[in-house]
């Protein structure tokens, strides 16, 4: 099934609604139910002409400072969220590659994907880009599903990040159970323990390196056969660095911060903007918010 994950590849793809629907059902780690992609629900904020980012300064620095402030509090008082302004996303996939590099992901695993959609007919066209990753849901259905197969294989950190316990969560069965429960596509991935330079004249040193996730150091051998997913770059945020996808975002569409802090950029963005979260009907309470001027019309291109 992992072959089918690469639907975001290959340039522009125009999709009829039906085609998209077909595709997404085929996509996710085996078994995302068709009902998973119900329309997003408009939920917070009102559209303001003047945005937070209109103030002078550098959003990246603002978020960096927000992060340092949050780290001064105990972990349980932090509520991490991503706010993705899809008007600013240029579909460059820098986030996807940065994530592979940061987390030393093996072939077939990509925590971040960016779907690309062309809508309309020549010459009246729209083209937009939709980054997705694990939504770190407050009521993450994957946790319960996984733990039903292997107890203790998934949990939630006090700051809301959904944790996979690599030493326990091994095998396809638990992966499939968690994937099936997840209301979103492109979230969970099965790690087959491959290397990008397998079969070439020489395995390259970067593939052998250690990497840190969930506060622990790992190598590829440890994670072979496990389920993998985005963890908001725990190693970075715990050390005071913003997630890799956020810092590298060329259009600065990515925002990250603490929703428990009213002064954080993410809090301000959500107060002042129209934002949507996907598939609230699932009750999962995802922690990724999407900004757009016309979320109804835009999101409906695929999610209807």
């Amino acid at each position, binding site marked *: 099934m992992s072959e*089918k994950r*690469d639907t*975001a*590849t*290959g*340039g*522009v*793809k*125009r999709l009829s609604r039906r085609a998209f629907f077909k595709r997404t059902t*085929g996509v996710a780690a085996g078994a995302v139910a068709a009902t998973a992609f119900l329309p997003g629900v408009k939920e917070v904020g009102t559209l303001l002409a*003047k*945005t937070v*980012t*209109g103030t002078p300064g*550098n959003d*990246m*620095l603002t978020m*960096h400072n927000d992060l340092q402030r949050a780290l001064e509090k105990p972990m349980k008082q932090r509520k991490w969220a991503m706010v993705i*302004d899809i*008007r*600013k996303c*240029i*579909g*460059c*996939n820098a986030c*996807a*590659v*940065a994530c*592979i*590099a*940061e987390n030393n992901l093996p*072939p077939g695993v990509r925590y971040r994907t960016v779907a690309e959609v*062309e809508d*309309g007919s*020549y010459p009246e*066209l*729209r*083209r937009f880009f939709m980054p997705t990753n694990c939504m770190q849901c407050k009521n993450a259905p994957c946790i319960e599903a996984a733990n039903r197969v292997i107890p203790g294989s998934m949990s939630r950190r006090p700051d809301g990040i959904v944790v996979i316990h690599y030493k326990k969560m091994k095998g396809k069965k638990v992966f499939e159970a968690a994937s099936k429960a997840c209301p979103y596509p492109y979230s969970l991935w099965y790690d087959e323990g491959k290397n*990008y*330079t397998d*079969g070439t*004249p*020489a*395995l*390259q*040193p*970067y593939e*052998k*390196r*250690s990497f*840190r996730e969930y506060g622990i*150091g790992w*190598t590829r*051998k440890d994670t072979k056969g496990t389920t993998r997913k985005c963890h908001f770059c725990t190693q970075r945020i715990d*050390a*005071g*660095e913003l997630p*890799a996808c956020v810092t*590298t975002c*060329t259009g600065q569409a990515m925002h990250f911060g603490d929703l428990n802090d009213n002064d954080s950029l993410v809090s301000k963005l959500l107060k002042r903007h129209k934002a949507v979260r996907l598939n609230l009907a699932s009750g999962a309470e995802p922690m990724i918010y999407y900004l757009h001027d016309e979320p109804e019309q835009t999101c409906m291109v695929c999610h209807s």
Partner: protein
Amino acid sequence: MNNEITGRTRSKSTPRTRRSFLKSSAFLGGSAVLLSQLEWAQNLFSRAEAGVLSPAEEYELSKAENILRSVCLQCNTGCGIKVKVLNGVAVKIEGNPYSPWTFVPSLPYKTPLNETTKINGSLCPKGQAGIQTAYDPYRLVKVLKRAGKRGENKWKTISFEQAVSEIVNGGKLFSHVKGEENRHVQGLKEFYALRDPKVAKEMASAIEEIRKKKTPEEKKAAVEEFKKKFANHLHTLIDPDHPDLGPKNNQVSFIWGRLKAGRAEFIKRFISDSFGSINAHGHTTVCQGSLYFTGKAMSDQFAEGKLTGGQKFYWQADTSNVEFLLAIGSAYIEGGYGPPHHAKKLMKNLVEKKVKIAVVDPRFSKIASKAYKWVPIKPGTDGAFALAMIRWIIENKRYDDKFLQNANRAAANAAGEQSWTNGTWLVKEDGSFLRASEINLAPKEKRQTKDGKEWEFDAFVVMKDGKPVAFDPNDEKNPVVGDLFVNTSVGGIAVKTGLQIVYESASSKTIEQWADICGIRANDIIELAQEFTSHGKKAVADPHRGVSQHTNGFYNVLAVYTLNALIGNFDWKGGLIKASTYSIDGSKEGHPFNFARLHPKKISPFGISTIRHEVNYEESTIFNGYPAKRQWFPFSSDIYQEIIPSMGDAYPYSSKILFSYMAAATYSLPGGQTNIEILSDVNKIPLYVASDITIGEMSMYADYIFPDLSYLERWEFHGSHPSIPQKAQPVRNPVIAPIPESVTVFGEQQPISLETMILGIAEKLGLPGFGKNGLGEGMDLVRQEDFYLRMVANLAAGDKPGDEVPDADQWELQQFEQARRHLPKTVFDVERWKRVVGEQWWKKVVYVLNRGGRFQDYEKAYDGEKFKNKYGQLINLYLEKYGKAKSAITGKNLFPVATYLPIADVTGKEVTDERDGFNLHLITFRDITQTKSRTITNYWLSAIRPQNFVLVNSIDASRLGLSDGMKVKFVSRSNAEGVWDLKNGVKKPMVGEVKVIEGIRPGIIGFSLGHGHWANGSSDVVVDGKTITGDPRRATGVHANAAMRLDDYLKNTCLLDPVGGSVSFYDTKVRLVSEKKGEGGS
């Protein structure tokens, strides 16, 4: 359908067996570095398993001592990078927040280093994947010598010393190759013919005199005189009867792909200043040559009686502040010099409604997806489009009169402008500017140059309120303004202003007629012209490759820049700005190392180059009427597509030895297969030496390949780009241990690299300017750092006294060394480095290197609404010099102003292949995940985009019966077979996979550059008798440059712009031929 695609791609990437790994490991020759890294990894791995990782190993990548700053080179943009190193291995790259390319606004330069450890800027996907360019299993480690025929890809590893010795001395070097048993190869020493700088100088000035002779008889007499005078030196010349071809030294050429400062000076020192060849050529014309060379034409200044000295440069929009951006053939957020900074600036302003974007492009590019208006123009008609806007703006008086009327510097200053045009200067019917003496308005005056030579000043003339006024363009005291549109006579001489001539060109057709040529609606042009003239100076029409890479590229660009001049947006915040770079060459006051003087025996090359650049055909002794055998380029240089084909034709003379660096002419040029044909012929180029990091698409045809250092292992000074408002000079410096093996040159252990190759040859050949005291008494040039560190010291000194950077403090000095603890002594030796620049400069050098270069603070780029790093001089809208010059093929004069020319070959014959059934117009574009020829080696990028596609509009698809996933072959008039003939028995079909989209103008098809490789690790090679299996993941997709139209007259090169020199990328008509299912594209 889609599943089929991905399924197929996946099956191609199935990793090969362990056996092939073992078989091919000889290729790399067992790099010590890699082995130690492996050991480390295993060690760490076992400790991780045991759960005994120490706290110190917790997120190592956030620690200052594991971070080095340098510059990306995954494309030519030059984003600053922070390279994070874990136990000696680079594992993650971030943007450098000091760099304006990756952080907007960038951190103030004086921000303490320790405060920036955890702050990261942004990079594009290629930048993020950069470590895979360095850690590439197909990297070369040892020197390779050809063991089979050219291009056959059979090699043997030889010692560096042997290679250098053979190249210098020549001999029967390939007696082991069938057919070459008795071929004697002449070595470099035979072409190091003219060695005396004094004789070279005398010959050069005598040749200048020959050039000035008007008639063939006079020229002949002058040549005879020359032969008498230099009787003792005639054996050093290529042809004593044509001394203007220059010395035999010119039969050795050095050409390059992507070359940046530092290495540029190193190569020039070798091939030009020391060896004495004029043939050092770059690749500008395959990128956006005509953009650069229009910039050059427009920036000629009036000096000592001549309009001269134009810079090879161009302007771009200030994307931070522009209010209306009209992107013409310019893919801002996919290529176009800097998706990271352009995207950040434009997307922020877009959501804040501070910028409106309109896009003129046959493809619905990503920037078009962010625009309020997309105008899908026909390729190659951008000049017509700009002229239509010019016409509307002039007729509706929407131009900036207060800017355009300024005839000289004083007038510009008085009007609060920083630059001015020659649009009001009066021009006579013969195309020359009217001079004041001609109408007795002002007498000629004698003036003196800086070095005391006398010259005659004859004032230019404008018409003001019907009266002629004389002026000096450079006058700072007496402002002179002129009427814009004049068509009259003065003193019996018919005159017009340059602007009048521009208007006549623009009004030669109605807006409807222009719109018709462009295949768009007249109303769209008018609407855009209205919008363009509704933002004061904060609007820009920004041209890029889509405008310049046509046979009419030069005039397209001139038309677009002329359009900008109408609103006077040059040097304004939000207008057109230029690049500003800190100097490294020692030419500024206070620079410690003046490189112009650091050569004990510099020779000045002379003669006509193999590409006939910056020289007039008519002045040469080989002038033989029109048409000339090939085009001449009096105003342009670095004509990439003419280098190898001219060697093939031995015009103007034969070439004997070719060096190439980072070049992939065979792959990246339109019609690159013509280069393959010539390179594979040992009689046309008897010796070919390449410097490359892998066996590339061009270096595979070499006789010797020297491994080079990747961008993470080497030095360079990346310079800046017009879209970066701050003055900048990013410095590339070694951040990881070198991959190639180490050798001894001048007694010094150093990794093989471009520089080591040059040093080795210089040592063997005894070239001056290298080795002991190579830079002058007491200054050796025995390692590359001897050269580059001194440049860093110049950079640290700044461009004027008082501009020095601060000293690095104790913490910074420690970090500098700590962060380089993984570098071997062959590249980093702190005591030696210190000695090179001296104690006085060392701490400043560290300050610069710790920040990855030198960057001005954002706010310093502006002074209120004015752009401070200004162009600040004359902008030529009327090109007198060009109007006087003739095409060497047609013998006709060039146009002096913006004009629209139909797509044609060098003889002026229009290209109309669509009439012969070639029913689709081919364009290319950049996907952000690939550059043209190298990034296919990055597996993380292939994970995102495993292949490219043939993009076809749905209207064409249903007309032609094409659908998603179909395999089609590109066929054109120049390539009826639709293949790349690799001249090694392989014909690689140009077959790609169709993707049907809406976002491309019907009738146009496109493919993105960067796929369809046949070298660079994508196919099998044999080294020392062992087969190294190619990786099919590197061969995916299609590269259809071989379908691109060849010039009917020149035959062995692509269509080209005879004025600006650009190759034509977007003027080919093709047919797509459906392949049977199952036939692969590679």
